């Protein structure tokens, strides 16, 4: 079997297992998994920029929130049906990422990190400023009646799971294919040695711009889906915390691996869930676990497996 075939089988198997899990898992865990899959889409978007292109952003919450608010406002204030509102959310993220990518890519390294952070803070403040529409800190709820898509009620637990799985699978398979394409390999070249890539004839600036836009749009799609599936639009999702989360997820799961983002979200979600079940000091336990992992698996879970056992892992 070639590497590509193995990779295809692996991803197909992950999707099938996730589908089968729905029939096995108790309702509580199925609900968690739906949330994890949507957040994993966010993490995959982040991974595209950080893991594959080597650009560290501290402002991705603005993309997630752009998608979420684009969707939520279009439904609540624009009175649009859910499907159209999701497209509005994605379009909003597209605009934001084109503008931010154009401006932020004039800087590099630490300056890029800071500029992204500043843009995200601006986004957060804009949400608060227009409290009349966004309900500021409180956020707002998208009613069950407004969460139908193609005749399905996405607030229903089962439908929600399948919708999350469909979105997740599409992104996972798309990314698996994308990173194996010439474009994906060129992104890796930029990550590994930008100057060398440029002197091999790659338009590295254009590649980085496309990576920001693609990464932004995926993050925004996750944001819109989150609003649609879970019915709550809140400014917490635009805070720094939500810019740090995808970085942590990707680092934990394995930057520059296709499955790392999902594994990272899964791991962190249950780490916090289980430790808060055991003790009040759950953040303490979570912190220790993260520390241990970074010490003993600096490449992240999937990255470490690839480095030590399964070199073909995509």
């Amino acid at each position: 079997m070639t590497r590509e075939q193995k990779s295809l089988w692996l991803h197909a198997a992950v999707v099938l297992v996730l589908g089968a899990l729905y029939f096995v898992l108790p309702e509580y865990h199925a609900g968690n998994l739906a949330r994890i899959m949507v957040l994993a889409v966010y993490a995959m978007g982040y991974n595209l920029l950080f893991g594959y292109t080597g650009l560290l952003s501290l402002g991705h919450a603005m993309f997630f929130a752009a998608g979420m608010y684009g969707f939520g406002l279009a439904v609540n204030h624009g009175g649009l049906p859910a499907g159209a509102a999701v497209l509005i959310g994605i379009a909003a993220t597209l605009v934001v990422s084109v503008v931010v990518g154009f401006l932020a890519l004039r800087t590099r390294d630490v300056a890029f990190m800071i500029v992204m952070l500043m843009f995200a803070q601006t986004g957060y403040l804009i949400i608060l400023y227009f409290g009349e529409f966004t309900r500021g800190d409180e956020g707002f709820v998208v009613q069950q009646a407004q969460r139908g898509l193609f005749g399905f009620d996405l607030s229903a637990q089962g439908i929600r799971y399948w919708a999350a799985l469909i979105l997740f699978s599409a992104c996972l398979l798309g990314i698996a294919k994308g990173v194996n394409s010439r474009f994906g390999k060129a992104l890796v070249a930029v990550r590994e040695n930008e100057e060398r890539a440029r002197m091999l004839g790659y338009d590295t600036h254009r590649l980085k711009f496309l990576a920001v836009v693609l990464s932004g749009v995926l993050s925004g799609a996750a944001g819109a889906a989150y609003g649609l599936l879970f019915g709550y639009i809140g400014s917490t999702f635009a805070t720094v915390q939500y810019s740090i989360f995808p970085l942590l997820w990707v680092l934990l799961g394995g930057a520059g691996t296709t499955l790392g983002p999902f594994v990272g979200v899964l791991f962190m979600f249950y780490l916090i869930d289980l430790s808060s079940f055991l003790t009040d000091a759950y953040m303490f336990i979570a912190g220790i676990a993260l520390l241990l992992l970074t010490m003993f698996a600096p490449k992240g879970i999937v990255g470490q497996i690839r480095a030590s056992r399964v070199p073909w892992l995509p």
Partner: protein
Amino acid sequence: MNILETRALTKSFGGIKANTNIDFALEQGRTMALIGPNGAGKSTFVGMLSGRIPATSGQVFFKGKDISHLPAHRRIALGIAYTFQITSVFSNLDVRENVALAARRDRTKSEDEVAERVAGVLARVGLSDRMEQLAGGLSYGHQRVLEIAMGLVQEPELLILDEPTQGLAESEVTEFVDLINGLQGRPTILLIEHNMDVVMRTAEMITVLNFGEILASGTPQEVHDNAAVQAAYLGTTTNAES
């Protein structure tokens, strides 16, 4: 026909003039060596040809076309390949992928054709048995060779090599000379080289750069007989090898 020409090409780094009004011509199909003492401005000059270093003033013409305002990647797409003086490979990628990334510059080539070309070039430079190895794990000499392979695989019209033999063992230098001479006729080569033995065995033309200006240019014999060159460069044994 001249594949490459420059007019009054100048670069200053702050107060330092690294290149001053360089008028230069390179005939298609030739192998030319660019020599000169350390700090003469050789790397700066070829950097301005490839677009890596923006010129302060002056023009560069490639096949008669003014490319002065083109960014590096566009110049390379026109058929200029460039190798770095300080080894610059993709350390965390394997040898095959390093060369493949270089080969894919030509977007008309399918992945199969890329693979074929990569295998061909790696065989030619003797790295076939190390295809799967990470570039960062290669010996210094093999990394230099890899760097050359990344230039060759692009099948450029003009190949610029910045001190390719620096730090190579004697046997590797000989292999390099054979490799270059084996290419004869295909790409035009502009070779920066300190090793005079390599220059004499490969170059049909020599240009001598000194303090950012062209001191002499011509056939090896002409350059060798040039009094100014004798005084400034060839006469002093310390510069012949460094």
